[in-house]
């Protein structure tokens, strides 16, 4: 007869190994996203309640922000008029040159309903999926810039890899000098832009946009700005620390570019 007390270490080790082996077989990407589809409603209720509570707490701040935004709208409306003029002129010139209009992107609004529970990686779950024609690889933006890209899709839920995650690597350029570098996520520390030329004219405060190379992101989406610059350990290149324009920690609503 097996005595559990006597054989406890063996039993424990066996359970431990069996659980890990089984879990690596069971928890495939497809299984996870399908299970998340079931959890969508409770997650949406909880995250919605938390956002509502946060909004109540930040009411005064929001009021001030609202006032500022109203002022900004007035300025932007003036700018919009100028842009409309430019667009009309652009259209006329395009017709003259016989340019073909590229397919316009559509934006699907989505709500962030969950994150990694232990905060070990920068991924979020959004409440849109295949039902809304969301596909793997689609770009996710927030009001102020690039947020990430879709890596898994369920029927009514998707997982987004944020630009600050360690697994997020893509190419970017500086808006002012057009210097190209490789961007990689550094979690809460933001992003690191590597392989900038030693002689480049990149300065603190320069805006970084997506380069459109390698097909990860479309060209020209705002990523963030340079916070500091330093030469790398080999002394052959410059590295820049980039602060993302999007506040990844406070991401609530996003737009998926379809």
């Amino acid at each position, binding site marked *: 007869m097996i005595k559990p007390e006597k054989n406890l270490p063996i039993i424990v080790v066996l359970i431990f190994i069996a*659980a890990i082996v089984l879990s690596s077989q069971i*928890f495939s990407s497809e299984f996870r996203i399908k299970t998340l589809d079931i959890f969508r409603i409770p997650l949406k209720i909880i995250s919605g309640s938390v956002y509502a509570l946060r909004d109540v707490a930040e009411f005064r701040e929001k009021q001030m922000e609202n006032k500022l935004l109203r002022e900004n709208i007035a300025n932007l409306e003036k700018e919009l008029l100028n842009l409309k003029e430019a667009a009309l002129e652009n259209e006329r010139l395009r017709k003259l040159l016989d340019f073909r209009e590229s397919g316009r992107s559509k934006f699907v609004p989505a709500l962030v309903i969950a*994150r*990694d529970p232990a905060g070990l990686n920068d991924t979020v779950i959004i409440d849109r999926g295949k039902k809304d024609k969301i596909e793997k690889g689609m770009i996710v933006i927030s009001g102020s810039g690039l947020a990430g890209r879709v890596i898994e899709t369920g029927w009514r839920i998707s997982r987004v890899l944020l630009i600050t995650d360690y697994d997020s690597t893509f190419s970017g350029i500086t808006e002012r000098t057009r210097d190209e570098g490789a961007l990689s996520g550094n979690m*809460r520390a933001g992003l690191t832009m590597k392989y900038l030329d030693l002689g480049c004219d990149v300065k603190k405060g320069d805006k970084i946009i997506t380069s459109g190379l390698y097909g990860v992101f479309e060209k020209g989406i705002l990523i963030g700005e340079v916070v500091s610059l330093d030469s790398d350990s080999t002394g052959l290149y410059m590295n820049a620390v980039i602060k993302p324009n999007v506040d990844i920690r406070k991401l609530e609503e996003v737009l998926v570019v379809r």
Partner: protein
Amino acid sequence: MTLFIWIIILGFLQSATQLSINFLGLFAIFAGLKKGPLWGLFIGIFIGSFAEILSSQAPGLNLMLYSGVGLAAGIIKQKIYYREGVAMEFLFSFFGMLFFYLAYFAFTKTTQAGVLFTIIFSSIISPLFFKLIDTNTASIA
């Protein structure tokens, strides 16, 4: 049963709010500490499985970390002179969380800036948390 419902509710809350408290980790430590190493392991496996769904980490990593923490808390409690009290609960939570994040670092070679705050906040809240869970889950074991 109540414990599992608590785990799911707080797991959802933790996932939706991004609090600097690792409730799921505390649950695993609680199970090991109050109910023994086997319970620590089983509850850890349940928590790990739940976290696997919400996380995009390599399959098995969450399960290994949470069950490992639960099991370790139970074994260490049996091996050392343990006296019930707030200080012991704080110490177990602190070192349990430290073990959790160090093990994560060992496997992935990555960490995040807020880890220390999470360890400290989780440890501070642990005695109160354990008391709350203990009174609500008296039926287990």
